[in-house]
């Protein structure tokens, strides 16, 4: 190899025969210092995005399957921040921008652990922990959403039930508004909240039809639910246990036809010696629902 003088001048290889020029250059402190300064490296491009995502100042999104078809799931280091119909990625990004206002980047897939947790949640496992990023929302909204998380898969509760359970029994309409602003539908199951007359109510992730689809996929018998509601019955009691439930409560669904006692109001049931179920708590919002 022929030696060529170059910048920085410390460049050398041990097999050089003539070392004279190197000695001259490396013995000048400025050259070594200049060479050290040249060791500066640009950061890998993904570094900035990774940092901002991890601290929750930017979000990533990818598609996941759901009972409603492909959904877009966005997340950051603090948790899941957004769930939306995946259909048109540009529209999804636009809605995210409008509502959340952070940079959003599409990636290939939801991280394995998060995807598995969401899948388990949608399958009805309420014990699986899913971090949710609910920053920027009011305490009232968050209280409504956390309460909705307590409704088991395949069951529904009236808007008034949520209002009563979070200590604002008169805020039924505000509960509806908060549910319509749910940033993470399906994971926070706002679809499990219906009108007290048993009609299905609104749904942010594609309207009432989508809500019916999700509830059916969760094993709720909508025809049965609506027929009970149409006949004016709001509660079901068991003649054997003397416990009275909301109609979709898993305890109510275990009552055999022979022992099922429908009631139009909780007062009537209690007058007959029935006590409210501790699981579905039919007393919450009962006055408004009656």
């Amino acid at each position, binding site marked *: 190899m022929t030696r060529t003088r*170059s910048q920085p001048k410390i460049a050398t290889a041990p097999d050089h025969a003539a070392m004279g020029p190197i*000695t001259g250059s490396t013995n000048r402190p400025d050259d070594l210092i200049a*060479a*050290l300064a040249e060791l500066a490296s640009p*950061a890998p491009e993904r*570094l*900035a995005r990774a940092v901002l995502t991890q*601290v929750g100042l930017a979000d990533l999104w990818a598609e996941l399957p759901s009972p409603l078809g492909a959904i877009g799931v966005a997340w950051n280091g603090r948790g899941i921040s957004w769930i939306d119909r995946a259909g048109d990625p540009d529209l999804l990004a636009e809605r995210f921008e409008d509502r959340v206002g952070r940079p959003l980047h599409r990636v290939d897939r939801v991280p394995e652990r998060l995807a598995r947790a969401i899948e388990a949640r949608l399958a009805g496992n309420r014990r699986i922990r899913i971090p949710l990023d609910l920053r920027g929302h009011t305490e009232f909204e968050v209280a409504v959403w956390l309460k909705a998380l307590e409704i088991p898969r395949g069951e529904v509760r009236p808007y008034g039930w949520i209002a009563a359970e979070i200590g604002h029994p008169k805020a039924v309409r505000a509960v509806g508004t908060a549910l319509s602003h749910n940033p993470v539908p399906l994971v926070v199951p706002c679809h499990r909240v219906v009108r007290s007359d048993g009609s299905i109510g609104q749904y942010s992730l594609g309207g009432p039809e989508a809500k019916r689809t999700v509830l059916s996929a969760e094993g709720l018998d909508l025809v049965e639910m609506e027929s009970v509601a149409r006949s004016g019955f709001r509660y079901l009691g068991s003649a054997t246990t003397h416990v009275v439930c909301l109609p979709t409560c898993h305890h109510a669904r275990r009552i055999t036809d022979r022992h099922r006692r429908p009631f139009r109001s909780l007062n009537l049931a209690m007058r007959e010696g029935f006590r409210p179920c501790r699981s579905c708590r039919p007393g919450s919002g009962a006055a408004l629902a009656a």
Partner: protein
Amino acid sequence: MDTDLALAARLATNLDTAFPALVDAHAARLYTIAVRYLGVPGDAEEVAQDALVRAYAALAGYDAARIRELNLRPWLATITINLARNRRRRIADRTPPVRLDPLVEVGWEPSTPARMSPPAVAERHEGRRELARALLGLPGPMREALVLRYVDGFSVSETASALARPEGTIKAQVHRGLALLRRSLTPQLDVQADSAGEMTA
């Protein structure tokens, strides 16, 4: 430094809106510090990322006055160096010391002047690699001082503050480090290299 002062003021006012600018301004520096200290790009990237995330978490816990008084450059360097040291121990645990030598940087090389001939370019890259490798061969404290002082361009007092050492110690470590570097870069010329004693830091 002026921009860092302005940045600190913005961080004090609104951490979330100003933090992306901190990442822009400092990510490359912190990555450089980590990669020159560790010699392993993947580990360095994780260290730099972790350092910035920790910086965010720390800033989120500070009140506005404390953020405004922060000297961001040495502060961030301290976080990075501390994480890099911990990482170094883990790397040393999983890699026998004899294997450390072949660890060289892969990937990025600096842009070269267009007029440089191909052999010159190759030599320049080779020189950079050699220097990076020589740096990795130095004892940790000396390497920390050299990386901050010359790779990142800290002043002696900034280096001292970032590493929590007296300035005299930094001067001695930098001086000795340069001499060792020179010697390891010209192994056949130990006698001449030793004569570099009058070099100043």
